[in-house]
């Protein structure tokens, strides 16, 4: 599909991170236009565009906004820049290349929902990106895009840039709220949803970086323009973060519905070292593995779900024929164990035991029956944990057992990893 990129269209422009350059590419025209509109009109516009959240769950953005209870103020907007899904690095790219695009989107969303104080929650590891946003906020404030009586339109808005300190769970929106309130980043029960009772108990909208970055373009070009791109249920474009065994890893902005094959083979230059594709994950660490037979599936929330996985945060991890699927799953499980907040037992204990069992496979100590034991652990975590982190810890391992059960068997029968000469040390 020969589509012109939307979010990355000006990324070749030098110094795009500077306000003057960003304005020359049409920057802040969207916010100016938005300020001429009624907030309700903007909510309708975004609803009509069909924009779905780009953080992972794919919830329609305009619908999320319209859940705010009428007449309850103050309201808060939080831009979720806590990008931490292994395999995902698109928000980092968007912020580095064009921090003003993100900020403009935040200002549009804030105006649309009637928020006078917005937050950006950025993960602690993203220090250069923190600096880029900080500089952008300063420039925008001096130019009168934020502060009191913005552009003389009688609208006040300020943005606080808040730095996290290392916790994957804080990307989950209720854990993010808890963390932003100064606590340990533990998730909260939903309902009440953040739109009703969020930050400081007030109505709050949490939107991903890529989601808000789309807003200036939707305001300028209209809902129909946006809705003309993509698939019936997945409008617009998405940034795909490609990593692993491809010749050209990196970020690629593609129209929703583009075949996975095109992403991996054309844009990514195919599997590296002339090897064969073994498997891939379309949505980062959490998501179920897919096989070469799924290459013609479209890059789209619903199509990928139909194929048995989830698009998640748009992170395509590619694995060639030399990959030990057991070890890949072991890393992810170790990751979820490390990042489990400890609030609920199924996740805290379950990920611990799964991780131990995976180490046994890799070290050659697994016994017949341990594969079913792994599955059993998964069933006792999924649907029983407090938040989706626990659920997500089980999806990749279970899908790997489904498609590559023989590799687990080999680890048992050969008393170690058949892909390595020596059993590998446990990862710290």
């Amino acid at each position, binding site marked *: 599909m020969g589509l012109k990129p939307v979010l990355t269209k000006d990324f070749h422009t030098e110094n795009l991170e500077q306000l003057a350059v960003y304005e020359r590419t049409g920057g802040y025209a969207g916010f100016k236009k938005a300020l001429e509109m009624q907030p309700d009109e903007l909510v309708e516009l975004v609803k009509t565009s069909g924009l779905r959240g780009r953080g992972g769950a794919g919830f329609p953005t305009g619908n999320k906004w319209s859940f705010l209870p009428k007449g309850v103020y103050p309201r808060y907007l939080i831009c979720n820049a806590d990008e931490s899904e292994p395999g995902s690095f698109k928000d980092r790219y968007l912020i580095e290349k064009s921090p003003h695009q993100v900020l403009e989107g935040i200002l549009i969303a804030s105006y649309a929902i009637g928020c006078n104080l917005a937050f950006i929650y950025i993960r602690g590891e993203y220090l250069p990106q923190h600096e880029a946003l900080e500089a952008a906020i300063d420039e925008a404030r001096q130019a009168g895009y934020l502060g009191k009586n913005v552009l003389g339109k009688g609208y006040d808005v300020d943005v606080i840039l808040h730095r996290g300190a*290392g916790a994957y769970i804080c990307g989950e929106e209720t854990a993010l709220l808890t963390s932003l309130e100064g*606590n340990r980043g533990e998730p909260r029960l939903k309902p009440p949803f953040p739109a009703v009772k969020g930050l400081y108990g007030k109505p709050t909208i949490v939107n991903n970086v890529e989601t808000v970055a789309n807003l200036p373009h939707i305001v300028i070009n209209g809902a129909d323009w946006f809705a003309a791109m993509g698939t019936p249920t997945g409008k617009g474009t998405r940034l795909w973060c490609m990593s692993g065994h491809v010749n050209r890893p990196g970020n690629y902005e593609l129209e929703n519905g583009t075949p996975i094959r095109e992403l991996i083979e054309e844009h990514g230059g195919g599997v590296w070292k002339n090897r064969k594709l073994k498997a891939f994950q379309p949505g980062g660490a959490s998501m179920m593995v897919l096989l070469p037979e799924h290459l013609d599936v479209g890059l789209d929330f619903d199509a990928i779900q139909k194929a048995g996985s989830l698009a998640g945060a748009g992170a395509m991890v590619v694995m060639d024929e030399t990959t030990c699927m057991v070890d890949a799953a072991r890393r992810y499980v170790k990751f979820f164990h490390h990042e489990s907040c400890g609030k609920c037992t199924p996740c805290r204990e379950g990920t611990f035991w799964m991780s131990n069992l995976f180490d046994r496979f890799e070290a050659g100590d697994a016994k017949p029956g341990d594969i079913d034991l792994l599955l059993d652990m998964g069933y006792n975590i999924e649907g029983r944990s407090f938040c989706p982190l626990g659920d997500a810890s089980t999806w990749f391992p279970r899908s790997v057992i489904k498609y590559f059960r023989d590799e687990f068997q080999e680890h048992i029968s050969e008393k170690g990893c058949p892909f390595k000469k020596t059993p590998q040390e446990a990862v*710290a």
Partner: protein
Amino acid sequence: MALATPTVEEITALAARYPSKQSAIIPALWAVQHEQGYVTKEAMGEIAQILALPPSLIEATASFYSMFLTRPEGRHDVVICVNAPCMLRGADETAAYLEQQLGVRDGQTTPDGAITWHSTIECLGACGGAPMMQVDHRFEENLTPERIDAIVQRLRTQPAAHVAKARGVAPGEGAAGSSASATEPLRRNRAKRAQN
């Protein structure tokens, strides 16, 4: 060690900036870590006093987040990701090479006090440039043994980032994207807040 006056002022300003002063806990912990290199129990007590919150709350929050250090470390902080996307591109071998070059194990500091390194399973958001590491919170991607050698060489002679900054020493050469200091943004914040 009592907190320096600018840090105290910064924390006081933070408390006023947020609708709830409790939200200033994490930024306050960052301010302390940037001043002292790590966060002691005493410093958390001071934060509690400034914010008029119970010390137990500050400690409970601080202990949740992996980036707050509780003990002094080397002048430079090197973190290498070994999660699956990095593993696929040789992160294990890269970590082994780094360990060999530094001569100390994961989590330890070189005898000259220059470098503390550790591997992490927490994705650092640079899977497209794997194998990668963060050096004083700056991204170093597409690592090779030669690049690691150059980085290690530079760090061994270079003062801690914020010290280099204070002395007006130019940031290290070589590796792209590695410059300035972890301390810089908060210092800049501090200067700005003072103006406001």
